[in-house]
């Protein structure tokens, strides 16, 4: 069937389907009489109206439309829907004053909503005394530094407002000024959160270097650049403080060397994740008694090939698997690991982007689901094998083919009939399939697939603008 690239055809098709999800998908490209018909479909059943109001995929135009509803539960769901746009939230807030008698609290969900604009949050803060609402604003990243500073002006000695400091200390929008206020009057938890904050000013970090509280020291250890401070932390009794030094990118080599013999495997695991380890350090950690330390060395993209080769014989299968997954793993090691006696290790070889076709062809002869899923995912797998894997009874394997960027149209076509709805849904956006191929998905038995398909066609119309 030839696809007619006109929005009207698509909208008419959605209207005649009677399906509210298809209607929602094309609403944004409709106009005039057709738009009215779609609106009637959306508003025809309260059950569907309620579902669309809370559904995370409902298009923003439809969420805006739903804000006309007089149903208090629809409105409440809109206020909670993470996709509801800023303008709609503002309108709903204004509307909530008119509908106050309905007794549904819309202010707190709006105050929590990350699309609520700063001005709206400021108005809510100024006209509202409700503690839960103010707490929501103190946690909302959409509140700007100035608004958060206003919240800090509530009397901190009052127990109920103390949580504002803690929430704002963790709010990414908190300004350096706000963080200083919190740090100066806060307990150890607040001070620690301030130090961990991305906007923490250098002055506060410097102050905190002498803090005796271990919670603060843990955060300082991760950010501090002063050798003498870090040197003290290396001797700290608290493992998490030493872990902080081990994770700190700026910790000098002299301290790293000391931590190499730390009694805690947690510290050594942190070291094994570092990208600037010396060869001597790597050699030491590759023989660590803790398998997770060896695993992090095997995963580390700076680990030399010589070490990867040794770890490819490790007694722990997760370490061998990590070697096979390492982007630097050479083909010669992959050849060996493809013959590992454990399928979980071989599956990592199958997923490895560097695995050449000859390895994948061999692995494709296996029956293990994890191995075959990897083969199905791998872009070096020949189409003939992918076409066989499409027939697998295991959904994980078939999904691997769908995720394979090199799977061609002819390979993917049978999957349009896949029993698992998620697979059909994933094919909607597959660039290898054309519009004609995807047309059948508009009539899929699953509403998620129908919605995705109509949305894809609507997007196509929007981009080509052939409908205007």
């Amino acid at each position: 069937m030839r696809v007619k690239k006109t929005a009207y055809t698509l909208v008419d098709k959605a209207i005649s389907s009677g399906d509210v999800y298809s209607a929602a998908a094309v609403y944004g490209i409709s106009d005039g009489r057709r738009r009215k018909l779609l609106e009637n479909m959306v508003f025809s059943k309260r059950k569907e109206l309620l579902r669309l109001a809370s559904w995370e995929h409902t298009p923003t135009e439809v969420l805006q439309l739903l804000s006309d509803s007089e149903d208090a539960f629809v409105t409440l769901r809109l206020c909670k829907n993470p996709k509801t746009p800023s303008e709609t939230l503002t309108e709903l807030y204004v509307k909530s004053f008119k509908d106050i008698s309905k007794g549904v609290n819309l202010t707190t969900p709006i105050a929590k909503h990350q699309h609520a604009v700063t001005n709206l949050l400021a108005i809510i803060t100024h006209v509202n005394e409700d503690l839960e609402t103010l707490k929501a604003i103190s946690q909302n990243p959409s509140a700007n530094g100035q608004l958060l500073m206003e919240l800090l002006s509530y009397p901190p000695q009052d127990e109920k407002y103390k949580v504002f400091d803690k929430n704002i200390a963790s709010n990414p929008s908190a300004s350096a000024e706000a963080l200083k206020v919190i740090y100066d009057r806060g307990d150890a938890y607040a001070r620690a959160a301030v130090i961990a904050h991305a906007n923490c000013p250098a002055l506060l970090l410097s102050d905190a270097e002498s803090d005796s509280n271990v919670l603060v020291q843990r955060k300082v250890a991760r950010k501090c650049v002063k050798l003498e401070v870090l040197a003290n932390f290396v001797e700290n009794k608290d493992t998490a403080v030493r872990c902080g030094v081990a994770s700190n990118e700026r910790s000098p080599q002299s301290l790293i060397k000391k931590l190499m013999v730390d009694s805690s495997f947690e510290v050594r695991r942190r070291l094994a994740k570092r990208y600037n380890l010396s060869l001597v350090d790597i050699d030491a950690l590759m023989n660590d008694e803790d398998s997770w330390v060896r695993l992090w060395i095997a995963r580390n993209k700076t680990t030399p090939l010589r070490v990867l080769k040794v770890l490819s014989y490790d007694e722990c299968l997760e370490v061998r698997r990590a070697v096979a997954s390492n982007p630097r793993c050479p083909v010669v090691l992959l050849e060996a690991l493809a013959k590992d006696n454990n399928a979980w290790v071989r599956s990592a070889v199958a997923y490895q982007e560097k695995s050449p076709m000859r390895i994948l062809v061999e692995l494709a002869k296996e029956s293990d689901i994890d191995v075959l899923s990897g083969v199905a995912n791998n872009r070096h797998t020949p189409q003939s094998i992918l076409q066989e894997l499409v027939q697998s009874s295991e959904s994980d394997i078939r999904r691997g083919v769908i995720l394979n960027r090199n799977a061609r149209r002819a390979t993917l076509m049978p999957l349009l009939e896949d029993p698992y709805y998620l697979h059909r849904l994933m094919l909607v956006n597959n660039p290898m399939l054309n519009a004609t191929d995807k047309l059948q998905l508009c009539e899929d038995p699953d509403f998620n697939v129908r919605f995705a398909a109509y949305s894809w066609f609507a997007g196509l119309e929007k981009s080509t603008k052939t409908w205007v």
Partner: protein
Amino acid sequence: MKILVAVKQVASLDEDFEIRADKKDVEEDFLLYDLNEWDDFSLEEAMKIKESSDSEVEVLVVSVGPDRVDESLRKCLAKGADRAIRVWDDAIEGSDSIVISRILAAVAKKEMPDMVFAGVQSSDQAYSSTGISTAAYLNWPHAAVVADLQYKPGSSSAVIRRELEGGMLQEVEINCPAVLTIQLGINKPRYASLRGIKQAAAKPIEEMSLADIGLSAADVGAGSSMSRVRRMYIPAKGRAQMIEGTIAEQAAKLVQIINEFKGA
């Protein structure tokens, strides 16, 4: 050989909802319906027997409910069930699980299956009694929480493994015909193929009235039930409280609470 699979269309709820005016249930608009999760496994177990058998096995799905239940029955047909029966009469409204069992048993007496499968429980009401009560009405042996089944069509007995507390399994030989309530995880339920869905759309769903199965309005409904819903409500908030503070503070408070409960 015939296996009767009793299935139920269950309701689930979104976060915000209204209670019905009579206070006995949730307002219909807030309910989302789907096939009971346990019944997917019961049907799959029946399908496995059908597909591995040399002789002909008919899988019959039966449900009690209004028109909307057809959607769930079609899902079963799409997965390979041979026939679907829906029993309904307005008089059934308000029936408890024991009365539903009476209806299912009446269908079983008419259809004469060799086995009856049901889910261990329904996800919405969770009485866990329908399957077992059906066995009582039929005067058949029964086994609950079946996690494994070895049965050959035509055999006079089956070997089952029942899931017990503490990860224990109990192996039981049960005489057939029997009623088994099937536990989650006994198998891997299939998805309905698109072809199956299309074919199921054309298959008839047999509608049975009370008279068709030898019952009358007096046998069903709230009046004939041994239990009746008095009200449904959201209880007042208990002692739960939100743990506030920074992430580290929340973690510390949580550890403190756990230690207090442990007496540490």
